[in-house]
């Protein structure tokens, strides 16, 4: 069984709104594949927690860039 994933990024107020979609590919009925998809996303990939981690890490990177630039500019 394969999984197809699309990640769509929209700019939003200086940030990003991510739309993340998954579709399982296999010979099983669609209803079963949908159920398996939900289990995979929530229990195996833990995507909600993953995105929270991603927010923390990417915000840290953004803050670091902004902070260093501000520090350089204000200390002159």
């Amino acid at each position, binding site marked *: 069984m*394969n*999984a*197809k*994933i*699309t*990640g*769509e*990024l*929209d*700019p*939003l107020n*200086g*940030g*990003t*709104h*991510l*739309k*993340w*979609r*998954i*579709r*399982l*590919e296999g010979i099983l009925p669609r209803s079963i*594949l*949908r159920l*398996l*998809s*939900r289990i995979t*996303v929530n229990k*195996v*990939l*833990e*995507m*909600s*927690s*993953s*995105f*929270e*981690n*991603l*927010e923390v*890490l*990417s*915000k840290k*990177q*953004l803050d670091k*860039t*902004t902070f260093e*630039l501000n*520090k*350089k*500019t204000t*200390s*002159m």
Partner: protein
Amino acid sequence: MEALHQGVDGNMEAQPQKGYLLLADISGYTAFMANTELAHAPLVLNQIIRFLTKELTPTMQLAEVEGDALFLYASENDISRGELLLELVESCYINFRDKRRTMAHNITCPCNACQTVTTLDLKFIVHYGEYVLQKMTGKLKPFGSSVNLAHRLLKNSVKETTGWNGYVLFSNICLNKMELSPENIYKGMEKYDHFGEVETISINFEEKYQEYSANRKDFIKPEDADVNLEYTFTAPPPIIWDWLNDPTKRNKWYAGNKSNWVVKDRPHGRTGSSANNHCTNSGFIEHILDWRPFHYFTVRHKKDG
């Protein structure tokens, strides 16, 4: 004399640092200005400059607007995946072309400036080297020989040799630093006083734009998805894109089963359709089906073997 040696943080000596230098130049602007009404031409320029600034920052820091060009820089520590730079300028070019088309469609003003906006194009120069940051007229700017060379590279033989209007030119040293070997390139050699011969590699963005416009999109629509998730992040798309797609970075945020994504292959010398990543823990291969930085990607995960 002290002021001459004063650098960032008020130190007596500015610390040299290494990083990427980017120039985004609106080509055709001189002819555009010469042949159009003075009243509207600066408005068109202003709109494009603001658009470019939005596209290229904060991934790169804006040093200065130099007439019809933007000069930007980024420390090498801030660009962990060199390919992000290529994706950044490529995405900027594609969005510029879309914007240019929209501007042309929406303009009702019959003046020459507004009617000939489609003659403007974009070229990018990307160089890597050492510089020092100094504050000039209230703004931090990189200075140094590398900065001079980046500016010299604006005058190059790419258009004359290839006929390209929209392109990116990388110095060879820059592309090596980015660890990229893209296909369909033009290898050039420029010669400048004090710098000698400089090897360059250029990519035709006009061709890229046509490819993006013509290609069938491989994209899961919301109604076709088994699961739809949405999340709003604080950082802009280029930063989120990098965290989502850099295999090394991805391993840091996946909360589920321990993943260890690594680059498997890059058939065309860069990430894009038909490139593959591999998770050495789960044994899954990630095959890239569609790749449009920083708008969307579609991948297929398949068990190896």
